[in-house]
């Protein structure tokens, strides 16, 4: 029974490496761009700090627009753009382009929501002490929101582990591609089973690590 698994093992390892490669590119870039984007969304909301209602309307619309693409359709739709950027639409690097494009507004929405949950009284206090807007964002909002941000990173990582499998459908490699070839084309249930176990273990590990960091960062209780 294990013959199939032993035979497929090197490819499984390769697939896992590709999946992690996609995640390692996607998540940091999504966080690096999504955090300021989400912060700007928060700051320009109606009744927030910056009175730029038109700017918010446009930015909010763009975020919604990107978020409304089902991931597979986004992947296919932006193939010309992906080619332009990395020279090919195949392979793991190419697959990260739609993943990043999808992850940025997703993460930005998380940030916007997390910042909304920061107690406005603390912002009042900082303003009364003469803090400027940048100091309020940096020293107050991000300080108070840091455990929420860590939590959002955990959720996005787990979600994009899942999204990365869609990349397998269109030549992106990774664990999704592996599952299609061995589980779907060859009906190797045993290989599929091992793959699922490994994925479950990874998700558990991500979540455990994420929760641990959140607990370390959160001093509110």
């Amino acid at each position, binding site marked *: 029974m294990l013959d199939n698994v032993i035979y497929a093992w090197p490819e499984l390892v390769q697939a896992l490496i590709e999946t992690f490669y996609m995640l390692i590119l996607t998540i940091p870039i999504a966080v690096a761009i999504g955090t300021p984007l989400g912060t700007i969304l928060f700051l320009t909301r109606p009744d927030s700090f910056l009175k730029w209602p038109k700017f918010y309307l446009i930015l909010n619309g763009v975020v919604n627009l990107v978020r409304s693409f089902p991931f597979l359709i986004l992947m296919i739709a932006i193939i010309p753009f992906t080619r332009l950027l990395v020279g090919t639409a195949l392979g793991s690097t190419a697959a990260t382009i739609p993943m990043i494009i999808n992850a940025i507004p997703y993460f930005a929405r998380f940030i916007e929501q997390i910042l909304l949950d920061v*107690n406005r*009284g*603390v912002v*009042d*206090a*900082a*303003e*009364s*002490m*003469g*803090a*400027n807007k940048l*100091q309020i964002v940096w*020293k*107050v909002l991000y*300080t*108070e929101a*840091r*455990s929420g941000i860590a939590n959002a990173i955990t959720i996005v990582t787990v979600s994009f582990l899942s999204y990365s499998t869609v990349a397998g459908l269109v030549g992106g490699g990774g664990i999704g591609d592996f599952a299609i070839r061995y589980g779907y084309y060859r009906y190797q249930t045993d290989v599929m089973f091992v793959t699922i176990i490994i994925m479950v273990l990874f998700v558990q590990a991500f979540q455990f690590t994420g929760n641990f960091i959140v607990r370390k*960062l*959160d*001093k*509110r*209780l």
Partner: protein
Amino acid sequence: MITLQNISKTFDTAGGPLHAVSYASLHIQQGDIYGLIGFSGAGKSTLLRTINLLERPDEGSVIVEGQDLTKLSVRELRKKRLSIGMIFQHFNLLNNLNVYDNVSFPLEIAKVSKAERKQRIENCLEMVGLLDKAKAFPAKLSGGQKQRVAIARALANNPKILLCDEPTSSVDPQTTGSILAALQEINRKLGITIVIVTHEMNVINAICNKVAVMEQGQIVEKFDLREKNIVPQSNIAQFLFKNEIVLAGEREVQYA
């Protein structure tokens, strides 16, 4: 020290415009502990928040130490705010920072050097009796301790004025005493002018030398509490002053 002239502030709410403060004028002298009393929605907190322009009045001028704050640029206003401390009903401490870092916060805003920060933080925490809690996080403190940390934080930049927005409204009566004692000490030792908003006459009686009574956005009466015979004219002031006497009377009967 502080002069508010014909302050008006209207909020747009879902139910139409709300006239939070209407043509309120007030003069607060250096060294005063000035009380603003009224029931919920009387506009007292809004009026207090115009003193450091957390609420910018629609009309009127806010003159602090001879400067009209409404005419300052954003940058000048931020600088001015360093000399006006403020504490709040719900303390508004940064929950993810420990006590030391909370008090450090306004000093970092004011760009005070690290060595001097340490000195001032320790002085301020000592003044409110919480030096031993420097490494504790706010969640581990009682309400009274949190408010004293907030006081230390408000004092860090050596302000001349301390604004107190319902500072004792979310703590128990015993703790109220310790917070008021700390405020009185600050006023006496450091000569800081205090403006305190409250709905409790007890608070006014305990530490204020002057009081303005507010109702529906207007200042209806002002009293100098050092005067012997205070005769409140308005219904609200009569109620507030009398309320206290009735309570005291009841207590005497019970214990007799």
